[in-house]
C-alpha cells in the first residue's frame, strides 16, 4: 500500500513544554488510523498540526510526498471533524454542508447535488432545513461528518468524534464510521482517549505518551504485545505482578515461580503481566499459578469479574470468568481461589 502521509520528527513546543516530541509516522492510503493517548499526551496537538492550526516547532509533514508543514488550513486537502462538531449555528444543516463546497466556488447545481447525495448517505435528508440546535447529539455528529466528507478530502481527521455520544450510540457509530470510511475510500485519522474505540475501529493504533510515540501497530499486536508497561496498562485491563529476578528465574513476592520469556537486554526491576481473560480456574494444569482471597465480584452480564487479593501484588488480581463458568460455581467474598495461566500468555516489562 502507498504512503499518504508522512510525519518526520514532528515537534511542537509550548514554552518549555514539549507537547509533541519527535514523532515520526507513515500513514497509508485508505487506512483507518487511531492516535491513542491520555490527556496531555499530545494527540490533539498532533492532529491540529495535521489540520494546519498549529505551526510546527520542528520536523516535517508530507502529504503525497509534498511538504505541507507551512500550508494554511484553508489550502490543505485535509479536513477536520471537530470535537465540539463546531457546526455553524446560524446555518441550516444543508447550508452547513454546502459551505465548504461554496468555498471551492463550485457551480450551484453541483453543490446542491453533492449536498443531497451526502445527506442521503448519512440519512438526514429529512432534516436538511433544520438548524443545529434542533438536532440531537447523534444527528449533529453526522452533520459534522458530512460537512467534512462532502469536500472529498484526501485525509479526514476526527477529534474524539464519538466523545459526546452515549455509550449505546457510540457502539453503533463505531461501525458506521468504519462503513463510511470504507465506502468513501478516504484515509481517516482519529484521535481518541478510548482504547476500546481504537481497538474496534482502527487498522493501526499509535499510542502516544508525553508527546512521544510509544508504539504503532495493528490492534491485536498492541493488545497482545504492548511495547512497555504503560501501553500494557493503558490498553485494556492488565494484571501486573512485581517479580524478583535471579538469572532466568522469576519469583513473585509470595514465593511462587513465574515462568515467562524474558526479552533480551531487559534489566532492572521487572514485572510480569497477564490479561484477566487469560487467567484460568483449573490452576493445577497451568505453568503459572497464584492464589488469594476473593475481595469482590462485579457482574457484567457477559462475564463476571473477580477481584482477588494476593500477597504477590499491591493491587487486586482481576480475573474474568465467563457467564457459564460463573453459573457452575459460586464466588463468595472471602473464599480462597487459585488461578493459573500459561507461560505464552505472560509478558515481561521493566517496572
Amino acid at each position, binding site marked *: 500500500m502507498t504512503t499518504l502521509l508522512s510525519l518526520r520528527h514532528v515537534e511542537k513546543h509550548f514554552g518549555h513544554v514539549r507537547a509533541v516530541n519527535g514523532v515520526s509516522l507513515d500513514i497509508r492510503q485508505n487506512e483507518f488510523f487511531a492516535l491513542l493517548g491520555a*490527556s496531555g*499526551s499530545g494527540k490533539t496537538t498532533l492532529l491540529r498540526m495535521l489540520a494546519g492550526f498549529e505551526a510546527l516547532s520542528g520536523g516535517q509533514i508530507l502529504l503525497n510526498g509534498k511538504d505541507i508543514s507551512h500550508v494554511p488550513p484553508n489550502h490543505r486537502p485535509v479536513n477536520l471533524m*471537530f470535537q465540539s462538531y*463546531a457546526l455553524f*449555528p*446560524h446555518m441550516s444543516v444543508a447550508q452547513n454542508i454546502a459551505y465548504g463546497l461554496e*468555498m471551492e466556488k463550485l457551480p450551484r447545481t453541483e453543490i446542491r447535488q453533492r449536498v443531497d447525495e451526502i445527506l442521503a448517505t448519512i440519512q438526514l435528508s429529512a432534516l436538511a432545513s433544520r438548524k443545529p440546535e434542533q438536532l440531537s447529539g447523534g444527528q449533529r455528529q453526522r452533520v459534522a461528518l458530512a*460537512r*467534512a466528507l462532502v469536500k472529498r478530502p484526501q485525509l479526514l481527521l476526527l477529534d474524539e468524534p464519538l466523545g459526546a455520544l452515549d455509550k449505546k450510540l457510540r457502539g453503533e457509530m463505531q461501525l458506521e464510521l468504519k462503513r463510511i470510511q470504507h465506502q468513501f475510500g478516504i484515509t481517516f485519522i482519529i484521535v481518541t482517549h478510548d482504547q476500546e474505540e481504537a481497538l474496534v475501529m482502527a487498522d493501526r493504533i499509535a499510542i502516544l505518551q508525553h508527546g512521544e510515540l510509544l508504539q504503532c501497530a495493528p490492534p491485536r499486536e498492541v493488545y497482545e504485545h504492548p511495547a512497555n508497561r504503560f501501553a500494557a496498562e493503558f490498553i485494556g485491563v492488565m494484571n501486573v505482578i512485581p517479580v524478583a529476578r535471579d538469572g532466568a528465574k522469576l519469583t513473585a513476592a509470595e514465593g511462587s515461580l513465574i515462568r515467562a520469556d524474558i526479552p533480551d537486554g531487559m534489566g532492572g526491576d521487572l514485572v510480569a503481566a497477564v490479561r484477566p481473560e487469560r487467567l484460568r480456574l483449573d490452576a493445577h494444569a497451568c505453568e503459572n499459578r497464584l492464589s488469594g482471597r476473593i475481595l469482590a465480584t462485579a457482574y457484567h452480564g457477559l462475564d463476571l469479574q473477580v477481584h482477588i487479593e494476593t500477597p504477590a501484588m499491591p493491587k487486586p488480581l482481576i480475573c474474568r470468568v465467563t457467564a457459564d463458568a460463573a453459573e457452575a460455581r459460586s464466588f463468595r467474598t472471602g473464599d480462597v481461589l487459585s488461578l493459573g495461566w500459561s507461560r505464552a500468555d505472560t509478558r515481561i516489562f521493566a517496572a
Partner: protein
Amino acid sequence: MQDRKTLILIAPAFAWLTAFMVVPCLLILALAFFRRGIYGGIDYEFTFENFGMVFDPLYARIFLKSAWIAGLAALIASVVGYAAAYAIASMPRHRQPALLFFAILPFWSNYLVRTYAWIVLLNREGLIVGIARALGFDGELPQMLYTEGAVVLGLVYNYLPFVILAAYAPLSRLNPEIAEASRDLGAGGWTTFRRVILPITLPGVATGFIFVFVLSIGNFVTPALLGGGQFQMIGNLVYAQFLTANDWPFGSALSMVLIAVMLVLLTLQTYANEHASTGRQSTERADG
C-alpha cells in the same frame, strides 16, 4: 411557596418603578391631551392638538434630524465598538477583564465633565488646534466645536462602552472551533469573519446599536454643549417646552412620541435577540 418568595423579592423594585417611573409617565401622557393655558398654565380641556403639532414640518424636521444624528452616532459606535470588542475577545482570557475595565473606565467620571473635556479639545484655541499649530500647520482650520460632527463625536464617545460590552458578550462566548471549522472548510480570514463570526455575533451589536440610538435621540446635554445651540435635537425641544416655553402639554406630547419610538425599537431588538442563534457550543476539549 416559590411564588411568594418571588413576589417578595420583586416587590420593592416593582413598587419603586411604579411610583417613580410608571406614574410620572402616565401623568405626562395625560398632560399631552390637554390644552396649553394662555399664560403658560394648563387648561383641562381634552384635545389631540399637541400630537398634531409634533408632526408639523418644523418639529418633524427636528425629529428626523435627531434620528439622523442618533443613527450616525449609533452606527459609528457600533463599528468602532465591535472592533474593540473583537480585539479584546481575541486576547488571552486572563487579560480580558482588565481590558474591559479600561473600556468602561470613562463611566466612572461625570457625564458633564467628560463632555466639557471635548470643548477643551475642540475649541478655536483648544488642544487640537494647538497641536496642529505646534506641528507647523498655519492654514485655516475648520470649525470643530459647535457642529453636528462635534455632537456625533460626543455621543459616540459617551456611549461607546455600551457597544463594547454588548458586542463582547457573544464574541467571548463564541466557540473558537467554529472559526477554525470555517478555515478548515476552505474559507480565508475575511470570509470566515463575514459569513460566520459576524452573523453569529450580530445580535450583540444590534443591542449596542439600539442602546446608543435610544440614549442619543433623547439626549439634550451633548447637543447643548457641543452643538452650542446651533441646532436642536428632540431632547432640547422637550427641555425648552418644559423650562422656557412653558408649554407642558406640547412637551408631554413630544416625550410620548419619543418614548413610543424607543419602545418599538427595544421591542424589535428583544424579539430579534430571542430568535437569533447564539453560537454557544461546548468549548471544552478532552485533551491538550
